[in-house]
């Protein structure tokens, strides 16, 4: 495994920052090194939200994104802003509600927001469902590490529904279909 740069981008209230922390923690639990950074400033209060996670086998080196290779686009705004910046050949996981004249080549569409709503009654678990899709597709992190990281980070009162959202997300994507 080489250095991977994953961007989770969506709307405020979709749990994007929490998802980034959980992804980094799951990577550590999977025996890898990780960093997590987020956008600070007015973006945090409504509007767009973004988490970048770098995962590497031994050492992360530069802790910020330099060449994003994986994008999880969870809102129309995030899709419009970050898809054009993505290098050819990157992994692109998109919520089905994001529209475009011509879908980007190789983009994988999943009902991420709807799955979160169905499992939890709201959109807060959107980021978690996206992580589940990423996990099932790539095996970049271990499924159990992801479950454990969620259990360690999500408050008790939301844990049961969050774990349900996670399992539902893993079922959206066939295990190990892509690497």
């Amino acid at each position: 495994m080489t250095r991977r740069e994953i961007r989770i981008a969506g709307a405020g209230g979709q749990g994007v920052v929490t998802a980034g922390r959980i992804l980094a923690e799951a990577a550590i639990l999977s025996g890898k090194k990780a960093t997590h950074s987020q956008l600070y400033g007015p973006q945090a209060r409504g509007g767009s939200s973004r988490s970048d996670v770098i995962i590497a086998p031994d050492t992360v080196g530069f802790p910020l994104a330099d060449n994003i290779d994986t994008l999880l686009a969870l809102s129309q705004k995030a899709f419009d802003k970050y898809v054009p910046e993505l290098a050819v050949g990157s992994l692109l996981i998109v919520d089905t509600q994001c529209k475009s004249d011509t879908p980007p080549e190789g983009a994988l569409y999943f009902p991420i927001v709807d799955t979160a709503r169905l499992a939890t009654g709201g959109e807060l678990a959107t980021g978690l469902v996206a992580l589940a899709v990423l996990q099932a597709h790539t095996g970049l992190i271990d499924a159990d590490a992801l479950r454990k990281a969620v259990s360690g980070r999500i408050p008790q009162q939301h844990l049961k529904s969050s774990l349900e959202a996670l399992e539902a997300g893993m079922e959206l994507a066939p295990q190990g279909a892509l690497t």
Partner: protein
Amino acid sequence: MTIQITMPGEKLIQGNEACVMGAIASGCNFYGGYPITPSSEIAEHMVRRMPKVGGVSIQMEDEISALASIIGASLAGSKAMTATSGPGFSLMQEHIGFAAMAEVPCVIVNVMRGGPSTGMPTSPSQGDVMQARWGTHGDHPAIVLAPASVGEVFDLTVKAFNLAERFRTPVILLYDEIIGHTRESVSLPESVTVIDRVTPDDALEEFWPKEADPDGVPAMSPFGDGRRFHVTGLAHDHRGFPTNDTAVAEALINRLHRKIDAHLDEVIEVEEYLLDDADVAIFAYGIVGRSAKLAVERARLNGIKAGLIRPLTLWPFPTAQVAEVARKVDTIVVAEMNLGQLVGEVERAAKGQAEVVSHLRTGGEPVTPTALEEVLAKIDGGNA
């Protein structure tokens, strides 16, 4: 003294949180501050954690009083720290000079954001490097440490406390918003070595507050232990009382510098990477040091003989180490997130033995590995 850490194992920790953990591991038991982005998490964690270790955390009315509060706490025997960012750091300058002159150990963390003035609160910068050295007036000594990762924030916070106690002087920990806010996997050490200030063992009536040992560092008596006590920012004699005797004043100022300059090996820390056969070296610190390391590794894959010198100690400036690199390489690229603050020091140290060029960026974006890789390729192409 060795202190055991009760948090072994690898964890995802934010830079500012690691600073608090390092402070507590060092025995910090007083925090006085005024929250400001991007350092506010330090204040938040201190408020939560100080009471649990029997310490005190207080929010003062501004940064001037924040530094005053830690000076007072330190004089009374505490290990004290404050944290701030650019605008607050400006307000602290007068008291930094006081702490240097009165020889009060304390740690000042400046998480740099974009300036000048209130600038860009949530954006990184390295614009306060010269202010950390020369922000307060007069010929004062300065120790300034610059971590480049979350793990190093922990390590250098411990070192900052140790140097402050060892030399009875304020120590500044300087890192940028990226280091402060990034969360990173960190393996904390199982224990840390902690240095405490030397306290007097003289009989009460034989003690003078500013009588230095041969090392140049006076023993420090906590206020209230019954020994003579006098503190002033005025030039003073061995009793701690003001004097206009020019010979005494000169000896004092020289001693404030000598106590550190005679022990540079304890203070200066530099990372050197792939320099042995290098034709070109990048000089970079803090977050830019990490961009540079990645750029050097990528350049090596393309056959460019590149290396890195990364000071963890910015002040006193590692002149001897930079001079040594200048003798080895043809070119030194100084990369900074400012309009050129340490490049002059590198030129001064290099003394013309290597060409010194700068790669500078301001406005809130970091110097990226890709940008430095391009700089290295261009220099290599020019020499081919």
